[in-house]
């Protein structure tokens, strides 16, 4: 239990709940905590600093993470390590074709002793839920995650049940092996703040992995922050300053993806909000209290790419969402002074 009478160094003062500029000291404190957490994860997931920081950015943005890569690249390890670094409750669900929605959300059982129905929470009731190989479950089971991912609650037999806060879903999927899998629907993809690819480690990191396979395990990692701190940091990110021209810049970027000739469905307003939140966290992680275009550009592909549905002919030619985002950046001028001088 935390002592609520004492103000945590990262706690946002009540007066800052208003749209007020954060102080640089708070930003530096945020950055230090963020870096400590990232460093801790880096000790387990070697050579993936960028992915780790993007994942943590998503976590502090109160968004969910979809890790997509071939088997054995460390997706689950990354998810478990993040869960271990935060001293909250975490659960892992191994998605299989016969997994039922109630196996995820929980079930109501009649208690003969009490003579009443009791709700038994499913594994989704945790601060961090690792949905391993999410695309192996049936669409019905996948959709059981929809409500909880968006609203943070589960409704069983008409009764809503709040999941603990903060709540983070880290899902993994294998893009190569498609037999016996069900592609995630667009609506669910849109609920993931970022989609990350871990990728193979560089040679040096891979050698290091081989050397310490037995020593490195998420179970050995001591928690760096608790869930309250994560919640406070997420709250702080909501007060990052965004200059007016950047709002226009962000909307123009989204419009550029929507109006792109090779795109069937562009970025949704939810995606735009997600990018703004993620950029806010990214700025704070750099010790800044304001967003700059570099933050937007760093996060646009992980946030936007999986939300863009390319036109069928473009998809046939191998045009990806990332390429569309790159095109959009080439079309929209950065609102810097005299940038065209």
């Amino acid at each position, binding site marked *: 239990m935390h002592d609520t009478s004492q103000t945590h160094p990262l706690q946002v003062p009540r007066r800052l709940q208003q749209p007020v500029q954060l102080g640089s000291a708070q930003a530096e404190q945020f950055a230090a905590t963020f870096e400590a957490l990232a460093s801790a994860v880096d000790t387990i997931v070697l050579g993936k600093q960028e992915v780790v920081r993007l994942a943590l950015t998503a976590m502090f943005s109160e968004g969910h993470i979809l890790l997509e890569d071939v088997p054995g690249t460390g997706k689950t390890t990354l998810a478990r390590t993040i869960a271990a670094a935060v001293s909250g409750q975490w659960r892992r669900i191994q998605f299989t074709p016969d997994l039922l929605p109630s196996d995820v959300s929980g079930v109501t059982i009649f208690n003969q002793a009490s003579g009443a129905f009791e709700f038994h929470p499913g594994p989704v009731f945790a601060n961090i839920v690792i949905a391993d190989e999410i695309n192996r479950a049936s669409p019905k089971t996948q959709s059981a995650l929809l409500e909880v991912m968006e609203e943070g609650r589960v409704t069983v037999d008409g009764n809503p049940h709040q999941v603990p806060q903060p709540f983070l879903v880290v899902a993994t999927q294998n893009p190569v092996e498609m037999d016996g899998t069900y592609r995630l629907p667009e609506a669910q993809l849109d609920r993931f703040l970022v989609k990350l690819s871990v990728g193979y480690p560089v040679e040096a990191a891979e050698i290091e992995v081989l050397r310490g396979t037995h020593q490195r395990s998420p179970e050995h990692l001591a928690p760096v922050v608790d869930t309250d701190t994560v919640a406070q940091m997420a709250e702080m990110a909501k007060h990052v300053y965004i200059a007016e021209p950047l709002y226009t810049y962000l909307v123009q970027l989204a419009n550029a993806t929507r109006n792109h000739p090779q795109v069937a469905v562009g970025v949704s307003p939810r995606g735009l909000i997600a990018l703004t939140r993620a950029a806010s966290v990214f700025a704070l992680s750099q010790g800044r209290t304001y*967003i700059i*275009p570099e933050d937007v550009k760093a996060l646009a592909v992980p946030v936007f790419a999986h939300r863009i549905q390319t036109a069928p002919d473009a998809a046939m030619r191998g045009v990806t969402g990332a390429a569309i985002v790159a095109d959009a950046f080439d079309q929209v001028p950065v609102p810097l*002074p005299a940038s065209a*001088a």
Partner: protein
Amino acid sequence: MSTRRTRYRLRVAAVAACLTLMCVVAGTVAARVYHGQMLLLLVAGAAFGAFAIGFALRNRPSFLAPGISATGLAAYLLGAIALTSDGTEPLGVTIVDALVNAVPRTLTALIPVEPVPDTVVVPVFLTWLAASLSCEFAIRYGRTLLGCLPPTLLYGAGLYLVGPNADAGPLYAIAFCVLAAAALAVTAAPPERRPDRDATVDGQAPSRMPALMGAVITTTVLLAAVAVLGPAAARLVTTSPGDPREYVEPPQLTDIDLNPLVRIAEWAQYPEQELFKADTSADAWMRLAVLTEYDGTTWQATGDFRTAGTVVPGAGEATYSADVEIIELGGKLVPAAADPASVTDLPIAVNLYTKCLLTPDGLATGTSFHVDSALVANDPAGAESARPDLSDVTTVGVPPGTPEIMATIAEYINATYDTPYERAQGLADFLSQHYSFDAQAPSGHDLPALGFFLGSPVTAGGQRGTSEHFAAAYAVIARMVGLPSRVVVGFDVPSGSSTVTAAQGQAWPEVAFDGPGWVRFDPMPAAGVAPVPPEETLEKMEEETPSPEEAEGGGGEAEDFNDEALEQDGDFNEEAGQAGGGVPRWVWYAAGALLLACVPLALKLRRALRRRRRLRRGSPAERVAGAWAEVLAEASRAGVKVPGHANAEEAAGRLSALKADIGALPRLVNAAAFAPGAVSEADARAATALVGPFSRTIRHQVKWLRRFLT
């Protein structure tokens, strides 16, 4: 919403009105060479009609506009042809003839052009077309600038049609420009809505007041410059506009028309020959030909004849009228008092140089016509203190090989008389007193013939002649004296109805004076007065002439009125002194070169002022932004362009190719742009301090031409 709609409608209506009036003004330019107001009304109607149709269809499908407008044009053309037709031909024939021959006849029509079907079709058609296109561009598609193009082309076509046959007409140009400016101003977008990035300064639209003040000051300076430099610059233009009528072959002259002076001998031989009947309103000399060029053999007229309408261009108000019926006067030259203003019942061509008339088909017995003239006053009194008008070199040229007697007489005249007028009159007196009229004298006015007339003894047949000899000899000697002269052939016609006979035909000399113009002199001897042998007078003059030394010592009283020293002479009017003055041409060339040289200086000054403004004015954030803009501008000069979609970090990556340090400028510009208040005074100083070293470091990478020019 309704206010916006009303404002929009007002703007559209204002643009339509301006463009319509531009078409009217452009059509009016061509109407200046037309007789009367008919064409002006027709082009104005065409402009309004075409614009009205286009305006009414502005919200209809675009394919409707050409068809309906073409129908309207056809109807309007038919109306115009019917209105201007004289009814002598069936309307169908008139329409076909007008449509087929419109272009060549318009370009070669007599000036002032009579508004007949042939000549109104082209202006009306072009005006309608220009107005329709202008309406489509400006009203339907909202391209006001493009909409100004058709009226401008119409204006140019009007100028081409007019050629040199009308005054400059600056008011038309001013009105046209004002209307165009008004149309553009009405549709002008505020700076923040303009698509070009020049409309923004440091990412923000400029405030209205400085922009307005700048526009007012610039306009004032431009107007002042035009007012001061315009007249002087206009004087540099020495060529007239091209005239499409120059491509039309002028009427051909017969031999007797080319050199009508030879007719004098014939007329002197047969003085009773009846040439024409005349019923005139006053006594006047009716000119047949004016001869200004002398090549030592013949006197000939200068300038081509141009076909004209009933009204002769450039003439003043008619003060004299004559009804003429030809009897035996041949040739093509038409007798008329100077200067003819209008001729009816006879197709004519006019020599714009001498204002003489010609009828292309030639005169025949029974030909009758009416001519009105604005009589030119023969003003000897006004010429007494005037300088000779030497502006036309063809009137002062003396052919080589003049007889010695001519030089002797010229020397005598120069020695005897002081002022130009005295010399002109003295020469006339000399000829009239020393030579006699002889109707039987052989014809000829080449230099040997004139030498025979002037210098041969009486016993050999010399010293007597007809007006041909007197006028020709006078004109040549006058030129040797320094007086511009010409020979005129014509008739002395009394007031009232009379028959003009050959006895009234005469040649006389005229001398040009600055101010009074051409003044007629009469070198003919008075009837019944015995001539004094010229040798006596000339020998006496030689005895009285001082030696050259004495003459050089100031003994000569003759005044060289071509001497520039006369500029200060109060005897001559000041206007004459200024005729050839003005700013020397080299001054204009030097001024132009200086202006050209000032361009790079002005650009450098502008750049320096801009840098100063960017780095020294405004808040710290604005100065950091200014430093960033300066760095990007310098990099652009060095050939490294930073695209608009690059953020500060990417821009810094591109600038690294220049190997010049920009330090923390990317971070500062991000802070300045996206976190107002996060930039301190020290940050601004650090950012602005980077600009100078950066510029110096990359200076050698800027191409020399760009470095010189900017």
